[in-house]
């Protein structure tokens, strides 16, 4: 009798030798002891968890800022916070939500779940993965530390020039923003590199490109987009920092520069960023939907094609954020057409979700409710998106609360709701806990009602002429009732998020029930392993036969004894963390690769970069030099063969 299971009904050994191998694998893939062992973890699950929970904390901070702003705007002529504080609040709220919450949260989901879904034991470059997290944390703390020095960024999350040049913004506020964002962008880029390589080289044998789950496809597309969207923003921010620090003239019209260059570079990043935040969330929603509806996602291939199409088309839309800057009408017409075009694949995806629900047997648990909320809110945001893609309409509502409402309908509907649903769905695999359904449904109801009450009136406020980013308004403009309703909605949503957080905490109390391996009857292979996923993910290498390996009855674990490489992976005699790398399209076993397991160098490199950034911030040449030398030293030590 073989010492291993032959189907996906539990990745457990059947023989004493198999049990001993499992224990050996567990020890091999476990973290090193002590605090430095904890700090030096590079495994994708440790890094993924850190991303997810750090981003969640940042979301709470950003959400609290939003409620402070809504409190200020609840009544006319209010002075709950002053103008300067209000400027800092809307700048940091936007920056936190865009840079420190949605993208890192989704990246956390990808880093934790993609290897599990693809049948891998880790990311292809674990130390780079760990560096991505430390850079994210460092950049986030750097950005938030500006509050301690009374110099929080205050020019909006888009940092428009010339408002952000030294002569109009002389403090350190914008320098905190620019340097922090560069650090966070670097984190995003390294994470994206990891995901793309993982997608193409670390899939389980048999998981051909046509069998990859939609979640993994969405992760790959969003990551590929990051590779092309983020670097121009890094260049743009570096040029702006050079303008501010040493007086170059890139954005200075008097010196031959052009302030509009910033908008081009920023929106080249900024518009794809919307889809970078939408697409992985859509992957989470697809994963929930097929399981909750108990059927394959309808139009699976067109959905994947639409995701790829959105990824490409999103790079052709950036000028629709710039209709009001005086660009020629012919150009704006072309961008209007491109903006309309992206509604087609988006429509395909929405119809596929509706068809899946129509033909499935829906289980209305909390995660699925969030998906339904996502569809409703995202469709509304998409419709107003088509409206503002029309140039004359955009000219009327540009920089009004209509845009604020549209943006939140897209971002909250398209990203936050799937993320909250993803917590309910994936928490068993993430921590082994399960959130309570009753509390979950209450939280959903409050979030859905609160969100719509908070943001739907803002469409009308925008039509009535209420401009964005104003810290107060006079009585008698007809805005009072709608603003009060909007504030009440934000409080209701705040209570919803609070309930969600309480539910999350209660799920982790000691007496809470533990989740089984497959609580939902999942379709993809992460549900074949324990909850939470063990250190090594899978003892036996999965061999995948369809896009729903848990449902097809044919997918299995590779048989030891017949495949030398499988035996090598099942039985860790070499004391090295190993994974099977497969070919890019057909997922044929190609080579076994040894992976590093513990390293503090990614953390040290992050600290060195932070020293450099502080030096730039304070114009301290000595610190800059120390930081640079430390960066080179840390990178050399990290890359030196055999060093961990």
């Amino acid at each position: 009798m073989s010492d291993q299971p032959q189907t996906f009904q539990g990745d457990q050994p059947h023989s004493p030798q198999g049990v001993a191998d499992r224990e050996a694998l567990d020890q091999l893939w476990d973290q090193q002891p002590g605090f430095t062992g904890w700090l030096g973890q590079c495994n994708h699950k440790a890094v993924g968890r850190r991303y997810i929970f750090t981003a969640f904390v940042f979301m709470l901070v950003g959400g609290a800022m939003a409620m402070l702003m809504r409190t200020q705007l609840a009544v006319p002529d209010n002075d709950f916070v002053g103008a300067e504080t209000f400027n800092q609040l809307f700048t940091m709220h936007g920056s936190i939500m865009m840079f420190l919450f949605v993208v890192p949260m989704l990246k956390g989901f990808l880093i934790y779940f993609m290897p599990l879904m693809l049948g891998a034991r880790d990311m292809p470059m674990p130390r780079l993965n760990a560096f991505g997290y430390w850079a994210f944390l460092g950049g986030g703390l750097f950005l938030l530390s500006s509050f301690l020095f009374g110099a929080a960024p205050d020019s909006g999350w888009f940092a428009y020039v010339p408002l952000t040049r030294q002569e109009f913004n002389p403090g350190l506020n914008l320098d905190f923003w620019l340097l922090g964002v560069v650090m966070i962008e670097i984190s995003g880029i390294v994470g994206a590199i990891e995901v793309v390589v993982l997608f193409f080289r670390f899939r389980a044998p048999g998981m051909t490109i046509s069998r990859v789950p939609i979640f993994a496809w969405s992760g790959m597309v969003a990551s590929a987009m990051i590779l092309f969207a983020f670097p121009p923003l890094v260049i743009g921010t570096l040029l702006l920092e050079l303008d501010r620090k040493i007086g170059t003239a890139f954005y200075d019209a008097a010196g031959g520069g052009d302030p509009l260059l910033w908008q081009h570079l920023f929106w080249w990043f900024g518009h794809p960023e919307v889809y970078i935040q939408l697409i992985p969330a859509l992957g989470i929603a697809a994963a929930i939907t097929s399981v909750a509806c108990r059927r394959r996602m309808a139009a699976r291939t067109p959905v994947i094609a639409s995701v790829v199409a959105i990824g490409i088309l999103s790079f052709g839309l950036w000028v629709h954020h710039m209709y009001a800057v005086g660009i020629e009408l012919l150009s704006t017409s072309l961008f209007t057409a491109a903006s309309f075009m992206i509604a087609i694949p988006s429509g395909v995806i929405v119809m596929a979700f509706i068809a899946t629900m129509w033909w499935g047997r829906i289980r209305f648990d909390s995660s699925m409710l969030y998906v339904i909320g996502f569809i409703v809110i995202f469709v509304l945001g998409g419709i107003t998106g088509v409206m503002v893609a029309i140039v004359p309409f955009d000219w009327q509502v540009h920089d009004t609360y209509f845009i604020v409402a549209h943006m939140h309908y897209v971002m909250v509907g398209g990203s936050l709701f799937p993320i909250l649903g993803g917590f309910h769905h994936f928490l068993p695999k993430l921590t082994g806990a399960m959130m309570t359904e009753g509390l979950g449904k209450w939280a959903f109801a409050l979030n859905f009602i609160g969100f719509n009450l908070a943001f739907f009136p803002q469409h009308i406020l925008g039509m009535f002429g209420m401009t964005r980013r104003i810290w107060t308004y006079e009585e008698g403009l007809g805005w009072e009732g709608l603003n009060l309703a909007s504030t009440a909605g934000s409080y209701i949503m705040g209570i919803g998020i609070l309930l969600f957080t309480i539910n999350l905490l209660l799920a982790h109390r000691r007496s809470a029930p533990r989740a089984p391996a497959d609580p939902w009857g999942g379709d993809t292979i992460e549900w074949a392993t324990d909850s939470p996923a063990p250190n090594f993910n899978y003892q036996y290498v999965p061999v995948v036969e369809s896009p729903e390996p848990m449902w097809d009855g044919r997918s299995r674990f590779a048989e030891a004894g017949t495949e030398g490489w499988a035996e090598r992976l099942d039985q860790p005699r070499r004391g090295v963390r190993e994974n099977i790398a497969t070919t890019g399209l057909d997922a044929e076993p190609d080579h076994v690769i040894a992976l590093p397991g513990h390293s503090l160098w990614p953390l040290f490199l992050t600290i060195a970069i932070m020293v450099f950034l502080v030096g730039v911030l304070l114009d301290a040449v000595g610190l800059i030099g120390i930081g640079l030398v430390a960066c080179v030293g840390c990178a050399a030590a990290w890359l030196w063969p055999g060093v961990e």
Partner: protein
Amino acid sequence: MSTRISRTAFPVRGGPQGAPIGVWGIWMTIVVLGTALAGLVVSGVYLYWGQDEWPPAGFEAPVLTRGALALALSVGAGALVVAALRTMRAGGERAAGHILLGALLAATGCLAFLVLDLVQAPWHWDEHVYASLFYVFVGYAATFVAVSALMIAAVLVQRVAGMIDTGRHLELKVTAIFWIHTIATVVAAFAMVHLLPHR
């Protein structure tokens, strides 16, 4: 492409078919850096199109010779790194070390000319966007030449220490691939500084 060059990859089933993860990593890095370079070049061209005069009145063009020499040396250094890689593959470990030393000298020479270009520029970076672009492009190229030279130096030390040989030389291959981007950066800097038509 053989995965045998890596000390952490072990082929299965009749030989490897794909590139090692390290090679994937460096190509992904080049995609990112290439996009950044493209962003910088497009920004430069955008600013150039907005000018009535190029170079602006009173600004003399920088010396062509130093830029051309830096370009030639960067291409030379890249070619030598590739030659070292081929020699290493063919079993000439000692010769590969010598060629790498030559590459390091060429890279250092390239860096020296770029730095000299920056130091001896006839204007300051804050005088006009023309000058700002010159400093950024030349500085950007110098940064990557310096990084690439450090990579050659590290590989050379590893060769001397016996850590790189005919069977395991992924680090050398990664350095050779990275030089593609470095040469592209120097070419882009040269083109933006010296080849944009005068107006």
